[in-house]
Each structure stands twice: as C-alpha cells, then as structure tokens.
C-alpha cells in the first residue's frame, strides 16, 4: 500500500458541486503535481465531512484541519503555504474547528463510521473497512431465522419516524410462503429539515446496500428496490455506481458466493410527493399510481408491492444492520438506552453556532447535542425553541432541553423523535410564524384522499393565516387544537395525524405569544 504524508478529504455534495468543486480538484491536482507533491499527498473525493461550511470544504489529515469556502484562486497559496511549507492558511480555516471538535468523534459512530473518511464511489475502500463481511456472514453462516433473531435482540427500532421494532417487522414477513417477496428502501426523504438519509447515501452508499442485502436474506426476498426522490441526483449516481460494482464483484446477482441465493437491487425514482414517505403510498407510487396511502391491514409485510409480502425500511435503519450482524446485538446495545438502543443521526440547523450533522447515542439530551455538537447558540442569541422532527414534529421550549432524546422519554411529554431534524430558533423568532410555515406545508402536501386531512389542513392554514395577520381570537387558537385533534383521530394515514403535534406543542408551550397577537 502506498504511504502518504497527508490526506486531503474533499466533500463532494450538492453545495460544493454548485461552487465548482470539479474544477477546483483539477486545479489542486495540477498545482500539487507542479511542486512535486503528487506522491506525498493523497487527494480523496468523499462525502459529507460532518460540518456545513460554505462552498468547497476540505479536511486535511493528519493535521485535522478543516477549511471552508476555498476557491480556485486559493489553490496556489494553499499548496505553497500548507502542503509545501507546513503552515495552514488561517483565513480559510473553518472557524468552528478551532474551538471544538466533537463532531468529528468517529469512535462512537455506527451509521456514519465511514462517512467523510473513505471514497464513497470505491467498493474497494468499503471492503477495506471490513465492508460486506456481515453480508458474507449472514449469507453463509447464518440461517434467516437467526438474522431476524439477532436484529430483534439488538432492539433496533425504525429510524424513519414511527420507531417500530425492526426485528419484529421482519419476523412477520420471514415465515410467509410466497413466490416473490420484496425489500423496499424508503429513501424518499421529505421531512422539512431532514437530510440525514441523503448524507448517509452520499457518504457511504455501500453500507446501505449491505443492510438491504441482509434484510433480503432474512425475509427471503430476491428483489430489492430503493425508492429515492428525484432531487437527490448525487445519491442516485453514487448508489447506481455502488450497485454496478456489487454486480461486477458478484456480491449481488445469481447464486451469490455459491449459496444458492439470488438478489438484485434496483433504484426507483420518485416524482415529488411528501406523502410517498408513508410506506403504502410509496408502494402505490412504485406501481405507477398516485401516491395514495392504502388501508391497513393488510400491512405491507403481508401484502405490499404487487400484493407480495414486502418489508419497507428507512435508509438509516438499514444502515445500522451490517454493524449488528458483524458485531452482534450485545455490542450494538452498548449504545443508547435500554429501551432504545443504538445511535441516532441528527441534522442540527438554525441559530446554533455551527450547524451540522452528528451521530450520538440514543437518549442524549437536546442541551448536550446543541452545546457539544453544534457549539451552542449563535453568538448574541438566546435559545427560545427547537422544532424537533420536522413538520411532523414538535416545538420544544427550554423546559424540555434536558429530556433524554429517545422514543420512550420523549413520549412521556407527548413529543416525538421523528426523523432527526433539529431546527433551533432564537428569541426573536415568532412561534406563530413558524407554525404558519408548517401548516402551509401540510396544506400543500395533503394527498386529498381522505376528507379529514384534505379539509383539515386547509382549515388549519386559514386559521393560522388569520391569527398571523392579527385578525384572530383565542377561540381561533383553541379551534386549531380541536381541528388537529379531530384529524388525529379520523385521518387515514400519518400525514393527517401529525399536525396536532406541532399545533399543540406550539400553543401549549408558547400560549403568551398567541395571546399577544390575537384580538380580545
């Protein structure tokens, strides 16, 4: 193996591509060649680096220096100063990295263990980290029943929002006799503020594929689909590349590793509908229909895609599976709380000092996440509220800053963990305003199939609009709770059942603000 003095990791994502990262890399390679450093310095194009800098971002190892907003014009200076003379360029250094580095704590990571460290477009890089060993183990040394039991024992729960126990879900489908079964990966990430799945797929597509394969083996499916939203161009490209590499290596295909097991994985692209994140709506969409959720039961595990037994799992959920199979359920349970094991990937946004991506143990309180992983509040701002879990989430006040963030603890406060989005708001931001934005979102995204949701989302928007304009009364405010509660009890799917969480938490936690803006 070649030995390099330094490694430059370049984050390739939607933002850096827009900033011209491809041209930048060419220029950097050329400049390194010019000064004769091509053999000493390794240039690695990778996924998300774990912080959201502006423009093109770099991380340099072993110095562990993070640069942001680097431009083509800076290449010469960067090479000359940093790589030739060993003096990092202060004006380009990411401000956050000089103060704290906990975001880069790779030891505790499961899902993101390779993200930002390996080339996501190279299967060899993934194999080098022990990749596909769990798949080999699951295929050759374990019976499907054992895989299901191991996942059950791990206590892994779905990471898409509902938190259903994964092993249990698989155990419904595994014993069914059917000509064809399917695994569907739900990568139709649409919850506002959530993009962990995008970063998981951009940073380490092979880990998701490995999890998908293990799931297919456990339930006896020979075909898997990844349903991904059309906007995620880079994910689609990287996943397709990863699938092609697996086919070429014989990791998927027919009679894999002479086990007699066949599996094929295919990408399916969505067309823009939030409701398709609901598993039965997603299945309808895959079949070429409008994305209207189906009546349950029968659940997809029994009758799903083309009426065949189908397991639908979220990206993050499946990305946990290789670790569980490779290291065992007990190792996995060392992370998180007894009822809620493992880690959770969050995207922290809004008025924090350093917005970013982090993976922490389940049960880590919101205060720790904000302070230790996002550098606290932005300078000069005070914490007022956090929208946790996207539009289908709750607005938490500072009263709940120390609650453990896991499914069980949050449930006691009628709060949810949701999809992993944390949107932090400062004291100047209006709760009425943010609720207006959330309800406008629901009004747009209701699929219109069932009356409570179709009419309810319209009515909620009309009420909040009136209140926002200062024309509402406290009766209107309380009416919103009544409407949202009715929707919760009568709506067909989770979309219509969700607005109550934002509505109730906003009004209960910040009632004064509603009193101030309404008429007598």
């Amino acid at each position: 193996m070649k030995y390099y003095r330094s490694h430059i990791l370049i984050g390739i994502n939607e933002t850096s591509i827009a900033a011209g990262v491809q041209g930048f890399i060419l220029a950097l390679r050329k400049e390194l060649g010019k000064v004769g450093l091509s053999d000493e310095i390794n240039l690695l194009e990778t996924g998300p680096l774990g912080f959201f800098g502006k423009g093109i971002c770099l991380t340099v190892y072993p110095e562990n220096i993070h640069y942001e907003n680097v431009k083509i014009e800076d290449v010469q200076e960067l090479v000359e100063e940093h790589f030739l003379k060993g003096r990092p360029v202060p004006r380009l250094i990411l401000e956050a990295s000089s103060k704290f580095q906990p975001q880069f704590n790779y030891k505790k990571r499961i899902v993101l263990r390779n993200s930002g460290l390996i080339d996501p477009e190279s299967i060899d890089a993934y194999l080098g980290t022990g990749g596909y060993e769990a798949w080999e183990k699951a295929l050759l040394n374990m019976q499907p029943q054992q895989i299901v039991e191991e996942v059950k024992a791990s206590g892994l729960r779905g990471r898409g929002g509902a938190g259903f126990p994964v092993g249990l879900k698989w155990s419904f489908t595994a014993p069914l006799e059917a000509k064809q079964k399917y695994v569907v990966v739900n990568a139709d990430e649409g919850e506002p503020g959530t993009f962990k799945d995008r970063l998981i797929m951009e940073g380490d597509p092979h880990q998701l594929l490995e999890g998908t394969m293990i799931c297919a083996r456990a339930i006896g499916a020979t075909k898997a689909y990844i349903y991904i939203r059309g906007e995620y161009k880079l994910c689609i490209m990287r996943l397709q590349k990863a699938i092609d590499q697996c086919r070429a290596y014989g990791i998927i295909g027919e009679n894999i590793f002479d086990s007699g097991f066949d599996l094929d994985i295919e990408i399916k692209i969505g067309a823009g509908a939030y409701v398709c994140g609901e598993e039965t709506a997603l299945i309808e969409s895959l079949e070429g229909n409008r994305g209207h959720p189906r009546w349950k039961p029968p659940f997809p595990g029994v009758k799903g895609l083309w009426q065949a037994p189908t397991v639908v799992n979220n990206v993050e959920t499946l990305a946990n599976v290789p670790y569980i199979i490779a290291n065992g359920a007990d190792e996995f349970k060392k992370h998180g709380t007894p009822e809620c094991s493992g880690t959770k990937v969050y995207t922290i946004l809004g008025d924090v000092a350093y917005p970013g991506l982090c993976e922490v143990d389940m049960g880590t309180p919101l205060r720790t996440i904000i302070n230790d992983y996002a550098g606290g509040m932005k300078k000069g701002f005070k914490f007022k509220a956090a929208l946790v879990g996207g539009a289908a989430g709750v607005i938490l006040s500072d009263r709940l800053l120390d609650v453990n963030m896991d499914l069980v603890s949050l449930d006691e406060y009628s709060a949810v963990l949701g999809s992993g989005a944390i949107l932090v708001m400062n004291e100047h931001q209006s709760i009425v305003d943010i609720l207006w934005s959330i309800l406008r979102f629901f009004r747009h995204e209701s699929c219109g199939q069932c009356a409570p949701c179709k009419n309810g989302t319209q009515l909620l928007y009309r009420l909040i609009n009136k209140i926002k304009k200062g024309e509402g009364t406290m009766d209107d405010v309380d009416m919103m709770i009544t409407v949202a509660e009715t929707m919760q009890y009568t709506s067909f799917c989770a979309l219509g059942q969700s607005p109550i969480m934002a509505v109730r938490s906003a009004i209960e936690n910040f009632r004064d603000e509603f009193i101030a803006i309404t008429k007598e």
Partner: protein
Amino acid sequence: MYKEICSKYAPTKDNLIYILHEIQDAEPQHYISKEAVLAVSDYLKLPENHIYGVMTFYSMYSTTPRGKHIIRLCESPPCYIKGSENILRKLGIILGVEVGETTKDGMFTLELCACLGVCGNAPVMMINEDVYGDLSEEKVEEIIESIRGRQ
C-alpha cells in the same frame, strides 16, 4: 419522439413515472403535452385519466408549457426562518412574474417547492438540475444574471 421514449421501457404500469420524467425532460418547455399523454396511454394501455391523475399528483410534472429554466425555491420551515420570503420577493422583482408564471421571453418559470434536503445551506433553490444554497438577495441577482448572460 414520444414513441421512441416509450419503447425504451417495458409496457408496464410501474414505468409510467419514468416515461413521464423522460418525456418532460426531452421537451424544451418542460411539460407533458396532450399528445404525449395520448401516446403514453396507447403504449401502456392505460386510460388517459389515470395518466392525468398521476401527472397532477406529483409536483415535478407540469401539464402546461414552462420556461427554459425552472426555478424552484424551497418554502419549508428551515428555509422560511432563514428568509426565503425575501428571496421570493426579490425573484419576483427581478423576473417580473408571480409564482407559477413564466417570463415573457420564455426563459424562467418561478415555482415554490417543499424541502429539497439541502437545509444546511438554507435558503435554497434549484434551477433545473442545479442546487443553489446560502442565498441572499444579491446572490440571487448574480445567479439570474449569469444564466441570462450564458444565452
């Protein structure tokens, strides 16, 4: 053209979404015409109303002609609190159109959309396939001007 695109896919219903995507991308005005619907209906042996139903359900399809560049500004909460309303106002002034309209020269269509999943760089918009983040009123002006200049 429509037949050619259709024939790349097996004539099964689950390919409808892909065929529509490809037809719309091939159309300079980024929409799906009545003729296209008839051709797809014929190929997939599906009633036209099913195709219209699907087209109008998903936000990425349009039944009316649009501009050469489709601007989709995110209006979800993370972009909203970072000032997407100001960006929208600015875009309206620069382009002289309301949401859903196309500029007279057929260059731009202004649309709003739900979360694009690039919230780390809010406020965000997409123009055709490209994502633009960390938008400010000045930056928006530059972007539009540079696209106009490219023509």
